[in-house]
């Protein structure tokens, strides 16, 4: 039997909620007993995905962003979705340094950060319908070695 747990939050796409989003996800994640580094990785990835939904998905209009988190044993899954304008070309959008908003000084590193800090990142998007970013990370890799080591 797998040890599972789930949570879902929905909030308005206001930039003030970016901090709320990553802290909520981090709090839910603590039951996996993650390292400080692992929490920081997930917080960064969530922050990138939520920021994308707010500035690109909704073009700063106030709509709803949804985050779903699921735990399956030691695997942490987080899904950030919006019902905004969607992405025409996902592959292009995920290329490092690519940005559609250079005038706003977006670095184009959002997806690159998500990929660097999570084990996997999947993007589903349909123009006019919205975008869903699904990320996974297994928590506690290599910690076994420590706990079983005899003194």
């Amino acid at each position: 039997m797998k040890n599972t747990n789930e949570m879902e939050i929905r909030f308005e796409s206001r930039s003030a909620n970016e901090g709320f989003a990553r802290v909520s996800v981090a709090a839910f994640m603590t039951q996996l007993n993650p390292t400080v580094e692992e929490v920081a990785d997930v917080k960064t990835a969530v922050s990138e995905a939520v920021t994308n939904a707010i500035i690109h998905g909704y073009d700063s209009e106030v709509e709803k962003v949804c985050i779903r988190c699921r735990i399956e044993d030691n695997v942490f899954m987080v899904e950030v979705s919006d019902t905004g304008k969607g992405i025409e070309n996902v592959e292009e959008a995920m290329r490092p340094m690519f940005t559609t908003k250079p005038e706003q000084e977006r670095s184009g590193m959002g997806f690159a950060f998500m990929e660097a800090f999570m084990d996997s990142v999947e993007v589903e998007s349909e123009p006019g319908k919205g975008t869903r970013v699904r990320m996974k990370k297994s928590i506690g890799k290599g910690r076994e070695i420590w706990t079983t080591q005899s003194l």
Partner: protein
Amino acid sequence: MKYQVQENCLTIYLPREVDHHNAEEMKREADAVIDRNHIKYVIFDFERTDFMDSSGIGVIMGRYKTISLIGGEVWAVHANARIRKILTLSGATKIMQIYEEEKL
């Protein structure tokens, strides 16, 4: 935004968290100060910072673009391991110097 100007050098004391939410205001204020004081060097002080995402990289890159036109430089000080990782990963370390404190 907390900052200090000494001659042509601007030190920006970054907040605890640097994200899209507070990056916008920082950009606006920093640009105004840079323009007003003929700033050539910008120092980002990460003393209080424990979180930064790619929006922070945007702030650094943007300021670099402005001051590199007049031969200026951007620096990072008091960056912890996490912040260094973000700076390295984004390639920001190619355009900015990280000031290493002397270790005892």
